[in-house]
């Protein structure tokens, strides 16, 4: 299958470009932090490690999604490798989707390995902590609920990748990068836009802000770290809703990206 062949080539490029070296940094950072924090705090270290592990997964993933994502299509065009590729039986939408799936695969491996590293560390903490300390924990150390947080982090990364890829079909990497990071930041404060009509008096401005609220991605719901770390329940319905939202948003972005790229003159 053509799409899959394109995706695998992106994955292979990630490996050759040493993208996965970030995993090493992640592991060192996490283990180092665990040792340090374990010496400074009592009882709180578990929460901090969970927080740190999830935040680092999100952060490292974000950098891969943006830095690799903005180059996916742009690099092919800029280096002209796209000419020989598109002369083959590869449709332009197939190229765009294949690139997307390839990076999604890279991110999946990245997030999975990080999850494994964090769980190993947490299992070690569970094993090495005395009963008295364990009794004070809000949630068990190797809590399966953490997987929910990892899942939503991954889905959020998929969304960010789609944004980066969308921009890269018509803009250069610096512009795409700035826009994607911009979307990411706004996405986390998006909910504020909805209630701006209570603050601004001008009706058109309120309408504009409301329109932006619906147009821009809302990324806040993807961050359930605090809930999971504190042992609060995240219902399956919430997960499904959030994933559904991401799926629709990604589908729209990829359709738009394919549409734009399919009409571009590759001069």
């Amino acid at each position, binding site marked *: 299958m*053509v799409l899959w*062949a394109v995706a695998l*080539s992106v994955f*292979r*490029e990630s490996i*050759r*470009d040493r993208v996965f070296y970030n995993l090493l940094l992640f592991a060192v950072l996490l283990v180092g932090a665990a040792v340090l924090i374990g010496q400074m705090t009592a009882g709180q270290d578990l929460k901090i490690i969970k927080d740190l592990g999830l935040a680092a997964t999100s952060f490292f993933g974000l950098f891969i999604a943006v830095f690799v994502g903005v180059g996916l299509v742009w690099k092919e065009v800029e*280096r*002209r*490798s*796209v*000419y*020989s*590729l*598109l*002369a*083959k*039986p*590869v*449709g332009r939408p197939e190229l765009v989707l294949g690139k997307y799936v390839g990076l999604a695969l890279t991110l999946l491996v990245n997030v999975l390995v990080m999850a494994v590293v964090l769980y190993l560390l947490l299992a070690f903490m569970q094993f090495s902590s005395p009963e008295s300390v364990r009794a004070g924990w809000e949630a068990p150390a190797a809590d399966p609920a953490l997987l929910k947080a990892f899942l939503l982090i991954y889905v959020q990364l998929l969304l960010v990748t789609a944004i980066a890829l969308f921009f890269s079909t018509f803009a250069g990497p610096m512009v795409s990068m700035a826009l994607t990071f911009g979307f990411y930041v706004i996405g986390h404060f998006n909910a504020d836009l909805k209630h701006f009509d209570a603050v601004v008096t001008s009706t058109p401005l309120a309408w504009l802000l409301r329109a932006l609220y619906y147009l821009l991605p809302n990324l806040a719901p993807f961050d359930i770290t605090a809930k999971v770390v504190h042992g609060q329940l995240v219902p399956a319905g919430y997960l499904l809703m959030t994933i559904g939202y991401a799926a629709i948003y990604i589908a729209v972005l990829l359709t738009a990206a394919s549409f734009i790229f399919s*009409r571009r*003159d*590759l*001069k």
Partner: protein
Amino acid sequence: MHAIATENLTKDYALGFWRKRPYRALDSLTLHVEPGEIFGFLGPNGAGKTTTLKLLLQLVFPTSGRAEILGRPVGDAGVRRRIGYLPENPYFYDHLTAVELLDYFGRLFHLSSADRAARVPRLLDQVGLGAERRLPLRRFSKGMLQRVGLAQAIVNEPEVVFLDEPMSGLDPIGRRMVRELMLGLREGGTTVFFSSHILADAEAVCSRVAILAGGRLVASGRLADLLAFGVKGWEVVVDHVDDGVVDRVRPLADRMTRIAERRYALELSPEVRPERVLADLAAIGASVVSLNPLRDTLEDYFMRRVSEDGHQRQVEA
């Protein structure tokens, strides 16, 4: 059915950022290429050759006109399976080796892994990269990339192959390899459409050519018809012409030029029978080093047509 056909194919590019000005890169190109021929698409840089190729491969879209390959519109997905393309100054993925690149492209044509395993090394041997097959492409020179480019253009055993400046960046041995490759493809029934501004290469392999200048077709047809292939005269190089006999040799030629001690180049008019001159020279005691017909070369023709076209444009303006 033509292998390649274009009807009034036209491409305008927009130049400028705010105030877009149209720039006509290709102007009403109508061209037919027959199956199984090597067709040379000639013209100076900026003539519109690459634009035409990109239009045929749908890398850019025409402003007007249409193009067909193997009787089907260029956008047809089925057509892509049956064609190959070498872009100008090709560039591929740095992180892959030549084998991996061809394997990847073979996959895109749904070649089985057994087919790929058999075909890829053979192709790399054919383009002279057998020894470098496991080297990452980032280490490849321009000429080596050109060779990989040629191999990937024929990985699917295409019926029509488009080569944009296939000889560029190659040394004389490489150029000969490309010529042999093109002739081999034609033997196998493949139509070869190649662009070049290097006319000697075209002359060596093409059955028909088209000449493009300033986005317009200025001539097309069989090489023999386009060029005055009739002999324009003869050049004889003679040696051992002693000073005493120079005056006896001079009347035999239209022009006589001294090359070195006792060695001269003689230009004969086309009406003269060279055999008689050779006999006369032998009688005088001079020895003949070479005899060559003087012909109109593609280069001459090319320069003439391009300047005629430029002149015509000036008149029109």
